[in-house]
């Protein structure tokens, strides 16, 4: 009996079916918890699903590569979903156009804050130079952030972790920050989440309000481009003044 089970496991662990299925199941469980909490940001579905999966993979000694062979089918949809962000952006275009000044000012201020504060706080706490450089692009979507880290001498795989943690922190913390600041406009809330915590923040914004989602998507795209331009020379400057 035990041998049969282990034979089944040998088959399953080598097939993409398992990785795909556990991704969907873990997410469904996480999403059900999130819904039951009344969409409480502390019950962030990405955070809970990742926790369940890491626990499962560790306990079953399954490698991430094996898991990803199945999970890549979900991962692939990030591309078309990113393209699909054009639709809410179009639907909300009138509002975006009426807010051109706040959008551009918020973009510049937020983008600079995200880069400079991460590097400076890490330096004050004694982090190494390559760690500081890996932190600089942490507020933009993973492929852009890893590309930047590579160019400026950071560690791309460390940046990938920092990007995900940043996304989750922003998605979890934003409501508390905005409520304390008495910021109620869904456009501003969405835009700030998109600047601070890219796609994971945008996903949270969409679950709450379509206008917030559209502004978060806009912010994510604009901040990706601006950060790619700013980080190389800001980082060089920040590292040199040390």
């Amino acid at each position: 009996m035990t041998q049969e089970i282990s034979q089944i496991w040998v088959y399953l662990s080598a097939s993409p079916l398992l990785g795909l299925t556990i991704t969907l199941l873990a997410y469904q469980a996480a999403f059900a918890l999130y819904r039951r909490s009344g969409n409480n940001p502390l019950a962030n579905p990405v955070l809970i699903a990742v926790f369940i999966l890491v626990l499962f993979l560790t306990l079953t000694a399954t490698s991430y590569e094996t898991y990803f062979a199945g999970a890549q089918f979900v991962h692939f949809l990030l591309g078309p979903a990113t393209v699909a962000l054009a639709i809410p952006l179009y639907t909300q275009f009138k509002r975006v156009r009426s807010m051109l000044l706040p959008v551009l000012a918020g973009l510049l201020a937020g983008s600079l804050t995200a880069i400079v504060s991460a590097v400076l706080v890490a330096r004050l706490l004694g982090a190494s130079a390559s760690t500081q450089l890996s932190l600089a692009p942490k507020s933009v979507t993973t492929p852009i952030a890893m590309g930047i880290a590579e160019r400026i001498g950071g560690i791309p795989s460390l940046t990938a972790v920092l990007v995900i943690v940043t996304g989750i922190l922003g998605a979890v913390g934003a409501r508390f920050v905005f409520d304390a600041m008495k910021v109620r406009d869904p456009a501003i809330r969405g835009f700030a989440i998109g600047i601070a915590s890219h796609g994971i923040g945008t996903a949270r914004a969409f679950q709450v309000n379509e206008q917030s989602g559209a502004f978060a998507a806009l912010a994510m795209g604009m901040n990706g481009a601006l950060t790619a331009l700013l980080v190389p020379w800001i980082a060089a400057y920040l590292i040199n003044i040390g």
Partner: protein
Amino acid sequence: MISALSALLVFQLAGEVLARSLNLPIPGPVIGMLMLFVALVLRGGTGDELQSTSQNLLQHLSLLFVPAGTGIMVHLHRVSDEWLPLLISLLLSTLGTLVVTALVMKLCQRSPAASGEAP
């Protein structure tokens, strides 16, 4: 749904080709998003099918980050030496960015507008 999905993939593909051939620092899907946005403005509407397909995809955008997020298990050891400065830096910087962005936008905006539930 099939035609909407095809349209999204065509724009992603075009964005990917453009990003690679021009060596742009922005990923292909983001370029594809911009191109689709321009196409929608030119066409003057989204159409029902594209609207409902995108709504379905975006409602569960969180799911799509789960495989990459799980990748954290591979690289977690990189964080282990310096996890405390990293965590404090990420926390302060992320919350600080939220505050500064929202504050600057609020100051630049004359008319406080719009209702609805917010995140």
